[in-house]
């Protein structure tokens, strides 16, 4: 997960490396995801999210679809 100057920079970098374009998000979406994802990481009660729970978090910040899928159909 990298921060690029723009979508064009991400595309150019991906093409040079032979990588698929993958997914893009805004820094605001990434911040929203980071806040939710790491809110309880230092708590003794933390446990790893199940695939379904992780998908729920992704959906909360607007990410659904095959790229964000962790559960099996």
């Amino acid at each position, binding site marked *: 997960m990298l921060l690029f100057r723009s979508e064009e920079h991400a595309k150019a970098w991906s093409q040079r490396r032979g990588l698929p374009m993958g997914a893009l998000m805004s820094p605001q979406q990434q911040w929203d995801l980071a806040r939710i994802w790491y809110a309880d990481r*230092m708590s003794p009660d933390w446990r790893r999210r199940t695939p379904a729970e992780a998908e729920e978090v992704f959906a909360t910040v607007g990410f659904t679809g095959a790229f964000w899928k962790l559960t099996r159909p």
Partner: protein
Amino acid sequence: MDRSQGVDQAVRVEVYRLFVELGRAPVPAEIAHALDLRQDAVEDALRRLATDHALVLAPGTPYIWMANPFSAIPTPFSVEVGGRAFFGNCIWDAMGVVAMLGGSGRVRTWCPDCLDPMEVAVSDGHLTSEGGVVHYAVAAAHWWDDIGFN
């Protein structure tokens, strides 16, 4: 919770506490000293935590590589929070360090394409910097195939 789960929980929490206190990853001896445990018990716990993807060990060692969002090694994602410096494993984790440690701080990185310096600033839980786009090359189901690449 059985005994090993209790030890694993205590070790995991202590890893984070020491990471914040020291500004770097603790080694097993430091965790053992802090928790009054044997070092081999701590190393066993770290291996179980790594198997569960609760943290990542440097290959072939009992030493912490990642206690997400923290990175034990320098990365292109330096984080400043309250005058303290850390490294995140990626832009998600770098922002995660800021979120986890109070919600105010800044992340410095470079655009991988043009190498221009970039900065993400957060104040009291609000993003205050502008510009940039975050790119995920690998689909979520494959993040743990090569966690170092992600």
